[in-house]
């Protein structure tokens, strides 16, 4: 490598370090300021809690096994709703693609459902399916499924016209067109819809847990509010931040892996 290139590389590395150090510093200063302001009673610790209180709560939750239980519940629901959402979205998108007239007929209804704030349906869902995991999954599906369908379907109809024509000249059947072109070509769209889908699923699951209030991080937050234990609420939010960050990173990893193999 030339001297010049080394220099540029070094500069880039340095910049990266500065960025990372600043990010850490921001978190540390924020936590410190919060702690100090709360202990000096400038911030009312009853309402604003404090990092040390949150830490203690988290530690206690962890020792009693509650923490793992709630995270497990939420994670289980997220994985379930996510998998169902993606696979059902995929199958329905194929159906819509294969039945264009049907797709045109239900298009306005899909748009209508899509633009409806799904929370509004929460209470009905609970009455219909009972206050249990099922209603949480239904809630999450309501939010992620339509988005999945639309994303994947748009990927399908956005397929390269020329390749489609080519397959037609080769006399390809409908299922061959799907297998040889539509599915491989929209793999990218499907992969990129994973990220949107996981965010939507998380929203749906937490919303469902708010409503059902049995277990999970959403429950933890709602319960904390009900007994006015703001430290518990904040703890729940922090777990949620970390959890959704980790899930998002995990999906990014999958996305990278999948899009590397053509």
């Amino acid at each position, binding site marked *: 490598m030339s001297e010049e290139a080394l220099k540029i590389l070094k500069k880039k590395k340095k910049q990266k370090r500065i960025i990372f150090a600043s990010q850490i510093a921001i978190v540390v200063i924020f936590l410190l300021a919060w702690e100090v302001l709360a202990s000096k009673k400038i911030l009312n610790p009853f309402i604003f809690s404090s990092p040390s209180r949150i830490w203690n709560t988290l530690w206690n939750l962890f020792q009693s096994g509650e923490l793992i239980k709630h995270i497990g519940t939420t994670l289980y629901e997220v994985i379930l709703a996510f998998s169902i959402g993606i696979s059902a979205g995929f199958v329905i998108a194929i159906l819509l693609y294969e039945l264009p007239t049907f797709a045109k007929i239900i298009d306005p209804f899909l748009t209508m459902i899509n633009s409806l704030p799904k929370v509004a349906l929460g209470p009905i869902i609970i009455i219909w399916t009972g206050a249990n995991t099922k209603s949480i999954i239904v809630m999450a599906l309501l939010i992620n499924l339509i988005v999945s369908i639309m994303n994947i379907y748009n990927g399908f109809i956005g397929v*390269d016209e*020329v*390749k489609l*024509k*080519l*397959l*037609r*000249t*080769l*006399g*390809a059947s409908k299922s*061959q067109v799907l297998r*040889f*072109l539509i599915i*491989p*070509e929209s*793999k990218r769209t499907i992969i990129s819809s994973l990220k949107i889908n996981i965010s939507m699923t998380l929203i749906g699951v937490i919303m469902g847990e708010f409503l059902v209030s049995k277990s999970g991080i959403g429950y933890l937050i709602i319960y904390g509010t009900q007994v006015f234990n703001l430290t518990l609420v904040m703890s729940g939010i922090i777990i949620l931040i970390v959890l959704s960050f980790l899930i998002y990173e995990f999906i990014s990893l999958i996305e990278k892996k999948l899009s590397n193999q*053509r």
Partner: protein
Amino acid sequence: MSKLLDIKHISKNYITESESIEAIRDITLEIEKGSITTIVGSSGCGKSSLLSILSGIDHATSGEFKFSKKDPVIGYMLQSDALFPWLTIYENAILGLKIKKKDTFENLEYVKRLLDTYKLSEFNDKYPSDLSGGMKQRVALIRTLALKPDILLLDEPFSALDYQSRLAVSDDVYRIIRKEGITTIMVSHDIAEAISMSDRVVVLSKRPCHVKKIYTILLSNKSTPIENRKAKEFSIYYNKIWKDLDINV
């Protein structure tokens, strides 16, 4: 020579929601077996429409065409190479065979031989993105040839290439077609390319297109397309066709 294809009074109207477009008005043409015919015509006059009809993916509004052979295999090559980026070069080359369920050992060997002959076999496991435009076009041609077509329909096969590779690839393609002895109908908007590659040049009128003139290209020493451009009759044909096309610059 014997006749392979007889096109009689073909017309084509496209009907859209807002209008009816008359693209082709009464085209009659005979295609000899083993010949190369190039169709030239102004932009949007209906050349691609004609090939689509001959390929069977579209229907004529009226008129008919008949092959002298029963169930002819038609090879249709489009403007862009339309290689599938997620398939290797080899997988791309055998795509047609796979779809038609003709991927027998013998046919696969034939594809391997073609790839070998046209200096592509070292790229068998590579992907289209690793190849130059000209190489991709050759792979697309091999994908078409793999089916051993009775007739080859080429719709501006080189228009996506830069001038240099265009000359080289058209030379290659010409050699391949001649060697395999395949009857070819090509569409081109390049008069020089048309003259240098074909036995006949068909000039179409503006839309709605009909056959305006047919030139049988007779060059004093017919050779490869690049060499043909040096023939003394070349410029005469060029000027005539240029006039026929009535291009207002």
